[in-house]
Structures are given as structure tokens and as C-alpha cells.
């Protein structure tokens, strides 16, 4: 089933782009995802299922960045202490800086706490839950963080965070924190003396832990709030949901991105808030670029033959993110359904579970179905980012000036051109065409 094509509301002639229908939809204030009740139900349901593990991810990411830091044997880094589970989210609870999630508490989500205790099996020691992978899979969050680290230099010069990591100021701040952290440990201090760059690089990675943690601290309450509003009947269409995201992006765009480390009760500001790094340019945009578009060519997301030079030479041409992801495992070796899908599976709202039961193999291939739903939802988030960028850099959709409208169109077409490039099979890998069909499950 294809969604009803919305007629272009602009004064421009129809676009001749391959994805003209999507361009027109974006110009009409819509999303890349067709506006159908089924799509809306799917994306909101999956946002809720994503938000619960995300509530764990951001807490643990900050815990690792701030407390575990450069521990050479971080065996217990996924065991988030009570202090971080009770850490108040700045966008939920009564003491929030900006209360996005109206009904929610600032501490860890109740469903998350219940799951952490029992997992999908039964109550047993934390270590056993960890070994059996009956837990939130932080490996996914770390993979996202690592992806942001690998694809450095994104959105420069708007993104100043990345270049700051190479500055002398950063090195000096990191040096203080490293020396304080290994105080009384001559072996590690000796190692630092011998291999300072290695420690600095680890520190940069920690800064990205913090960056991603702070990014997701915002997104979790956003998704919870969207779920609540949908349940209350406030969202009727996909654009409603997308516009909420766009508004949210602008509301928190200036949220500071920083990296603090706590050593023996003392705070070391490796990246101080005063540097003025912001949520939109230093976290959100790089995150979308790194995680939705690029990531890394691990097996499973897309079939490729590295020996036939099907893996791009240039990292900016990488296309292994969720927007291109092939959620069917390749042979027996595929990674997807990813650990994230496994995490989301535990927190699906009942209406989504019922929906999956009605399609394909029901319970048996729910991971695949929810993976594709997740793909749809991330196309919606990407649409929100595209619309936000258009708002920030270009013109309103109802601008009376045709030149401005053309500039908007050029921008939209340039964005969608990323899905039509023939190099390295990018065109075939992009799922934009698939998500236009409701039967793509």
C-alpha cells in the first residue's frame, strides 16, 4: 500500500527528481515517511521502545565518561551505579531545566529498573544477567559512540567540538585529568609518559561517550513524551510527530555539550561548558550523520565484497547506517537484528506487539519487523533534522519568493541525492524507496 500522494503546495513546477513524491511531501511540511496511520502507530510505538533502553544508554555513557574514564580494566562499566540511575534528567521531572516529558520522572524509567532486576529470565545476580546478555546491550551505544569518533570532522566548521579535541587546550585539560586519575599508580603514569598519544586518544573517546550521553539525555524524554501524546490522541499524522521533533530540536539546540571527569570527588573539566559547544551542532548533527548514514561496514548491515573494492575509500561515502541497513542477516553471520532491536523488543507497547503478530511470521520474526519499523522511524527523525536544517539555514515553506522556494527544493533534492548515488551500491542499499511501501516489513 502506498500513501496518498500529497499535491505540492509550492508555486514551483513539479520536481523531476527520482523521489519527486518525497520532495513534494517535504515541501508540504511532511516527512520522507508517508503519512499513514499505520506508519504513525509504528514509529511512535518504536520510539517508546527505544526510549527505555536509551534511558540506560545515556546514564551509562555519562557514568563511563565521568567515572570509569581510563580504567584499563573496565570490567564493570555496564553496571550503572545507583547514583547514575537516580541522576536527574534535565528534561524530565519537576526540577527539569526544560520539562519535555510532562508526566515522567527524572530518574531511571520504571520499566528499565524492572528489566534490570529480572531481565527476560528471572531475578539473579547482575553478573549472570550480564554474561547471559539478559540485559541492556550497551555495546550498541558504544558502537554509535565509536562511529561518531571514527567519522571525525563532520559538519565542520559548524561543529567545533571535533577540532577542539586536537587543540592544545584540550590536551592540557586532559593531561590534568589523566595525571589525577592515575595518581599513585606509577605503572600507568609511566605508560602515559611513554605513550601520551594513546592516552589522549582514549580521552577523546571518553569525550564522545559524554557527547553521546548528553545527546541521548534529551532524546529519551522526547520519545517518552511523543508516546504519551500519541496515547492521548494528540498526534494524528506523521507530520505532527515530525514537527514535535523539529520543535524539540530547536528548543534544546543550545544545550551545552561538555566532558567532566570526577576523580576522588574532584571535578576535572576536560571540555568545559564555557566552550559553548551546543547540542544541535556538536552532538545531534554529527550523530545523525555518523549513525544514521555512515557507521562502519560491519557484517550484516549491507552485503559487500571488500576485495572487489565495494567498501568506499573515503569515509564520507560510508553508507552502513540504519537508513541503508539491510535488516536481513547475510547468511548465518549477520549482526542484525542488532543488539538494539533485542533491547527494544523488551519494551514494545502492546499495540505494536499485536501489530507484529498479524504480519509475516508474527512472534518469530518480530526482531526483523521491529527493525524495519525502527528504520521507518529513523527516516522520520532524519526528516525532522532535514526540516530543522532547512529552517535554520534556508527559508520557510510558505515563503512567497519563488527563488527561496527553489533554494529549499535544491536543498531537499541534495539531501535525497544521498540515496540515489550509484557508487558502491549506495542507491540499492538506501531504503527510502522501500519505506514508501507499507508491505515492506
Amino acid at each position: 500500500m502506498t500513501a496518498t500522494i500529497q499535491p505540492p503546495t509550492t508555486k514551483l513546477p513539479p520536481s523531476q527528481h527520482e523521489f519527486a513524491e518525497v520532495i513534494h511531501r517535504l515541501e508540504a511540511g511532511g516527512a520522507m515517511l508517508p503519512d499513514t496511520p499505520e506508519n504513525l502507530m509504528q514509529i511512535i510505538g518504536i520510539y517508546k521502545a527505544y526510549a527505555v533502553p536509551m534511558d540506560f544508554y545515556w546514564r551509562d555513557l555519562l557514568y563511563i565518561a565521568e567515572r570509569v574514564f581510563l580504567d584499563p580494566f573496565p570490567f564493570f562499566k555496564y553496571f550503572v551505579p545507583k547514583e547514575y540511575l537516580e541522576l536527574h534528567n534535565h528534561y524530565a521531572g519537576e526540577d527539569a531545566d526544560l520539562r519535555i516529558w510532562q508526566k515522567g520522572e527524572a530518574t531511571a524509567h520504571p520499566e528499565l529498573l524492572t528489566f534490570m532486576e529480572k531481565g527476560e529470565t528471572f531475578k539473579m545476580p547482575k553478573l549472570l544477567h550480564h554474561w547471559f546478555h539478559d540485559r541492556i546491550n550497551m555495546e550498541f551505544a558504544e558502537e554509535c559512540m565509536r562511529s561518531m569518533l571514527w567519522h571525525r570532522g563532520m559538519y565542520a566548521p559548524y561543529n567545533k567540538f571535533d577540532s577542539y579535541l586536537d587543540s592544545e587546550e584540550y590536551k592540557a585539560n586532559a593531561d590534568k585529568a589523566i595525571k589525577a586519575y592515575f595518581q599513585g599508580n606509577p605503572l600507568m603514569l609511566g605508560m602515559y609518559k611513554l605513550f601520551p598519544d594513546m592516552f589522549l586518544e582514549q580521552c577523546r573517546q571518553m569525550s564522545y561517550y559524554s557527547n553521546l550521553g548528553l545527546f541521548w539525555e534529551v532524546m529519551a524524554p522526547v520519545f517518552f513524551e511523543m508516546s504519551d501524546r500519541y496515547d492521548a490522541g494528540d498526534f494524528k499524522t506523521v507530520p505532527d510527530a515530525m514537527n514535535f521533533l523539529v520543535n524539540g530540536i530547536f528548543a534544546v539546540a543550545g544545550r551545552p555539550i561538555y566532558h567532566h571527569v570526577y576523580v576522588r570527588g574532584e571535578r576535572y573539566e576536560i571540555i568545559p561548558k564555557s566552550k559553548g559547544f551546543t547540542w544541535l551542532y556538536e552532538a545531534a548533527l554529527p550523530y545523525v550523520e555518523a549513525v544514521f548514514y555512515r557507521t562502519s561496514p560491519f557484517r550484516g548491515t549491507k552485503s559487500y565484497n571488500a576485495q572487489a573494492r565495494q567498501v568506499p575509500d573515503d569515509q564520507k561515502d560510508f553508507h552502513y547506517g540504519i537508513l541503508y541497513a539491510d535488516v536481513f542477516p547475510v547468511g548465518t553471520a549477520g549482526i542484525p537484528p542488532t543488539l538494539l532491536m533485542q533491547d527494544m523488543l523488551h519494551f514494545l507497547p502492546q499495540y505494536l506487539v499485536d501489530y507484529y503478530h498479524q504480519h509475516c511470521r508474527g512472534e518469530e520474526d518480530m526482531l526483523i519487523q521491529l527493525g524495519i519499523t525502527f528504520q521507518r522511524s529513523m527516516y522520520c527523525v532524519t526528516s525532522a533534522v532535514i526540516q530543522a536544517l532547512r529552517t535554520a539555514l534556508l527559508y520557510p515553506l510558505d515563503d512567497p519568493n519563488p527563488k527561496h522556494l527553489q533554494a529549499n527544493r535544491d536543498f531537499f533534492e541534495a539531501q535525497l541525492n544521498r540515496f540515489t548515488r550509484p557508487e558502491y551500491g549506495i542507491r540499492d542499499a538506501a531504503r527510502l524507496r522501500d519505506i514508501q511501501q507499507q508491505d515492506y516489513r
Partner: protein
Amino acid sequence: MLSVLIWLPILGAALIALLPKNIPTERIRLAALLVAGFTLAWNIFLLLKFDITSSGMQFLENIPWNETLGLSYQLGTDGLSILMLVLNSLLTWIAIYSSAKQTERPRLFYSLILLVSGGVAGAFAAQNLLLFFLFYELELIPFYLLISIWGGEKRAYAAIKFLIYTAVSGALILATFLGIVWLTGASSFAYDTLTTQGLSSTLQVILLAGIILGFGIKIPLVPFHTWLPDAYVEASAPIAILLGGVLAKLGTYGVLRFGMGLFPEAWTIIAPTLAIWGAASAIYGALAAIAQKDIKRMVAFSSIGHMGYVLLAAAASTPLALVGAVSQMVSHGIILAILFHLVGVVETKVGTRELDKLNGLMSPVRGLPVISALLVLSGMASAGIPGMTGFIAEFIVFQGSFSVFPIQTILCVVATGLTAVYFVILLNRTCFGKLDNNLAYYPKVFWSEKIPAFILAGLIIFLGVQPTWLVRWSEPTTTAMVATIPVIENVGIRSEDQKVSEWLVASD
């Protein structure tokens, strides 16, 4: 006691055919399963009662019928046929179980299957040539109907071709049987009273040629095989299981029982030709299988190749080779049955059998991973990978035949290598690779569809690691049969006679 194996399915067939029309298909299927299950249970009981130290006929039954014609109701079983009887009962049950729960015209379908089962059991147990022929012909029309009504797109063509070939086969066999009785001056068709020693060598060779041609069509041997790919491919999976697993064995059984058993002297003359024929069939079957694009047709051609090994072993006529021949018949029946069942499941779920379209079925969530894994196991068994029954049977065949026909045996070994080639092609294209996103909305495979394959896979592995359970039943009988055959002179060096069980122990 053997009569139960014949008449219980036939009685069941009659009762099912007379059931009221409003009975649901599933109940009819259940009734057929019960009848087949009881028959299988009785067969296992007989197997346990079977005296493995005796080379003679057991569970004898003899009821005079028409003495003028020389026809009597004589039944018996020995090491050559007991396993065939069990195979028949087992595969009948498997075929019924693997049939669709909503088969059209179920009363006729299941009646015909049970009728086939009774007929085949009768043929394996008959100790009277005319009685054998009656049972042999009994399965002809049911199989024709089973192919032509429930078959694939070209079912009518395939069924007619099958009918013509099998009718010619029957005519040749009947003519030869009549020739034997008339020329030897025997007063009846009783197997144990017939002796061809008094006939000239030429007459013996002519009559033996009639037997081999008649049964050769049924096996089938190249170039009488052209009915097989069409029939196997067009038949539904349960019927293909019976065709390949049971019916083809009637051919090899007939060659051994009536060819070698009645013409031991002529056998030594014709054996080198048979060995070449067997090797040529094996090579041809394998090469033809490699060229196929349809996985069911590929499996069908593999059957031609594997039956060539049986002919080679029969031609060699050493104790080891004959045990190998019987083992190969059983092993081939089981392996072919599982292959046809799995191919049937793949076709039902994916909607195609074409190698160019199938891909990535091993995919753990949206593919058919268990079916693919079993397909890999079956392919390995068919290719003679150690640890599975295919290896045991083929290795005994080659070990037993090499001393007599070394070149032909080596050709068959090459054919085994080619078997691995086409199964690698089949598995690589079907199970591995990338599952097509646009097509991979296959329905899930139910446990009931996996169970027949699990049973057969269990047998493949069990008989692979415990080969004495495969060979011990037939050893005394085959040793006795070989004793009546003069030494076959050939370029090979005849090894010392050695009991198979001793050889197996020595091999360990």
C-alpha cells in the same frame, strides 16, 4: 505374519475409500497415518524377531491359490528383503505425514498411497514369481493416478511416460518369468523350486537380459531413465519420496533376487557389462545433476547416479559388495526421502525450485534455517561424508567391488566426488548468500513439517555411526547368495572372503 504388511494397508485403503465424504481431510490423514503406523510397528516387530544368523527365508506363508497356473500365495523374507520391507513401511508413514493437511480428494489420495504400500510389501515378500508380478503391477495404476492427479504442471505428461515405461518393464518381466517356467519345465512359479542350471548359457543370458532390462527400467539405468526426472519432479513431495525411496528399490531388488538368484552362472558372464553399466549410470547421473537448474530435478538425477553403485556392487558379487548393495538401497532410500521432503518444504514456502532464484535460506530469522541445515546434512549424506549412512554404504560398495572391477569402481568413486560438486552448488545457491529483501516473506515452517526430516536425519546419523545395524540383517543371506555364483574372472584381484562384521570391526 508377513501378510499383515500387505493386507493391513490394503484394508486401510479400502476403508478410507469408503469413508463418508463429509469427514474432514485431517481425520482421513490421521486414519492413514494410523494404518501406516501400525504397519510400521508390525514391521519393526518382525525385524526384531528376524533371526540374523539364518540365511534362509523366514516368516514363511504358503497358501495354494491356482495350481493350474502355478500360482500360490507364498510369502517369506530374508536378509535381502527384510530391510526393504521396513524401508517401505517407514517411507509410507513419512510420505503420509509429510503430505499437506488439506490435500484435495483426500480419501482417494491416502487410499492410493496405502495401496502402493501394500503392493510394494507384497512384491518384496512374494516367493512366487507370478505373485511377485501381481504385486509389482499393483502399484502401477495407483502411482499413475498419484502423479497425474496431485502432480505439478506437467503431471499428465509425466504420468503417461511413467505408465508406459513401467508397463514395458512389467511386460518384459512377465515374459521372462514365463520363459523361465516354460523353458525349465517347472510346474509352478514358486521361487524355491526354480532352477536354471539345465538351460544353456545362451538361454540363461537371454533370460537374464530380460530380467535386467525389465528391472533396469524401474531402477532406472541409463538410457531407460528418461521417465524418472519427469515423474520425480512432477510428483508431489510425498509421492516423490515413495517413487525414489521405495519404487526404485523394487528394481534393484528384482535384479538381485531374480537376476542373480536364478541365474548365477549367466551372472558371471554378464557381470562385467553390468559393472560398466553401473559406472556409466553413476557418472551420467552425477554430470546430469550438475547441469540442472531445478533442485528437485537435481535430486532426481542424483538418484540415477546412486542406483548405479548398487548395480556395480551386484555385478561384483563379493560378500562385501552385496552387503554394500543392500546397504546402499536402504541408505539411498532414506537420503532420497529426506531430500525430496526438504525440497518439497522449500518449494511450498518459497514458491520456486529454481537455483537462480533461491538464495540465503540459511538466514536465521526470515529464511528457513532448520530446513537449510537439514538440507546441508542430507547433501553431505548423499555425497558420502563420513559419519553418515551414505558413507558407510558407498564405502562398503567400493571396498567390495574394487577387487573385481577396479576401473569401474574408480569411476564410481569419481561419481561420488561429482555428487559433492552438485550438492555444493545446490547448497551454496540455495542456503547461503543474500536473502532477497523483496522476496523474503516466506511463511514459517511448522514443527510438523520438520519432524519427518528429523526422523530421517536421525536414521542417517545413527546408521552412519552404528553401521552394524545396517549390515547385520543381510550378511548371512548375501554370503549364501554369493556362494552359488562362480568366481567372476576379471582384471581385478579378488580379495579374501571376509565377513562384513569382521571387516567393520577391523576397520574400527
